[in-house]
């Protein structure tokens, strides 16, 4: 019998003692976990909300635009704020779901940087994602506004359709008419807000004597000026009313030709006639020092310089046909 080599015996013994030693070892029945969560990485890809705010710049050039977006329930903390240069398109990109989808639940604010350009606020309804094009925003300097009422002094009745003219010292004029409820409104260019040479005339082209007032802006941009037109109630009760039809009509202190003329009457001035002597009429004219403060002065006019006004200044209905003259 052949005896194995010593080294082979040593090798076999080592094999049995080490690896093969587990051959009969039991196996634990359950896997043993650490309960450690797996390594995880979550990455989101969002869609965009793209908002475009087109501008129409009228006779001005802001230095820049400050743009803010607010939720309507929180106008303190802006969802978005940025500055845009005048040459840039106002476009905003926001991540998906950053805007309220409530109706008009979001406010887009454009604040032009420069003198007298008011802030523009646009309410709009947000979307989860996608494009929003806002209405065109007109960038215009704050206009100088003159507004008020035109009414008949006799009974405070509102007068519609009355022509009003605003003219500056250079002869530049602006026109408007009173609405049926007597309201009128001039929107003059921004620079008039710093000027004091505007005169507003009401009643131009009507039978009412034209009333003129100075519009003194003095850096303010809103003036209220009411225009009472026609004679006062007290004056109307003095006699029959006649309307002067010629400019530079003499208003004499006596009926005779050549008697003293303290002043001349203008077309559309009103005379309350109390006496008639031939073709000469004696009566009163009403001179207003202010809207409430008037003085009546007596004198004579020629019959050919006036026309009987009937009850035009007291009539219960507007007679615009007559007013158009």
């Amino acid at each position: 019998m052949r005896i194995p080599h010593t080294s082979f015996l040593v090798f076999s013994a080592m094999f049995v003692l080490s690896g093969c030693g587990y051959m009969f070892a039991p196996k634990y029945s359950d896997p043993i976990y650490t309960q450690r969560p797996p390594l995880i990485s979550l990455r989101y890809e969002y869609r965009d909300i793209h908002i475009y705010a087109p501008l129409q710049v009228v006779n001005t050039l802001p230095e820049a635009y400050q743009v803010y977006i607010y939720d309507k329930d929180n106008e303190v903390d802006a969802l978005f704020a940025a500055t845009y240069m005048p040459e840039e398109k106002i476009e905003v990109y926001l991540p998906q779901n950053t805007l309220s989808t409530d109706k008009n639940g979001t406010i887009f604010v454009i604040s032009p940087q420069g003198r007298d350009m008011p802030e523009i606020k646009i309410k709009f309804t947000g979307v989860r994602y996608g494009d929003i094009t806002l209405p065109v925003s007109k960038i215009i300097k704050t206009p100088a506004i003159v507004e008020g009422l035109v009414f008949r002094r006799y009974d405070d009745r509102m007068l519609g359709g009355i022509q009003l003219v605003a003219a500056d010292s250079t002869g530049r004029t602006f026109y408007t008419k009173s609405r049926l409820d007597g309201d009128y409104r001039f929107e003059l260019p921004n620079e008039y807000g710093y000027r004091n040479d505007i005169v507003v005339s009401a009643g131009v082209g009507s039978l009412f004597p034209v009333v003129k007032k100075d519009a003194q802006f003095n850096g303010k941009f809103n003036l209220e000026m009411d225009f009472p037109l026609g004679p006062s109630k007290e004056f109307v009760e003095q006699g029959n009313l006649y309307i002067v039809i010629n400019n530079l009509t003499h208003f004499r202190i006596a009926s005779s030709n050549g008697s003293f003329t303290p002043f001349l009457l203008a077309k559309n001035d009103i005379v309350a006639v109390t006496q008639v002597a031939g073709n000469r009429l004696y009566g009163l004219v009403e001179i207003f020092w202010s809207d409430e403060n008037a003085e009546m002065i007596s004198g004579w006019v020629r019959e050919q310089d006036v026309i009987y006004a009937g009850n035009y200044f007291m009539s219960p209905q507007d007679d615009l046909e007559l007013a158009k003259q």
Partner: protein
Amino acid sequence: MKQFLILQVFVVSVMAQVTLDVKVLPKGATIILDGKEIGSAPVKGYSVKPGVHEIRLEAKGYAPAIHEIAVQDAKRLIADFIMNPMYKIKFRAKEKGLTFELNGEHTWRDEKIKLNLEAGAHRLRVYYLDELFDDQIIVADRNAEFIYTRYQPELGGN
């Protein structure tokens, strides 16, 4: 009116789909979403609604993993997972009469035993005659043999 409401609900539910991509290491792991198998990793372009979903991953040789994801309303969610491997550990004690306890729930008295351990740290407690004899953390990071020796803190220091 009713039809309009149904249409609205339909439109909202269709609009609110999020595309889910799931990548898992190892490749080929089974992905179960809310109890329904949706495929083997990687899965691409699966549509889910925003909200909380449960993802369960299973792969041979890896510890099964369960994870809850609060899916946000977005275009796409890419979820990457790395599962923990399981290692075969040959455990051997040099002393007799000891009781071993792993992670507070697995107990044996054998001097030699084969264990299937998830990668990571495990707490090993050793009892002798029902008295706590040793308490140490062992780390499984490969298939290996683990020979138990009682933990002895190093002496000395500054």
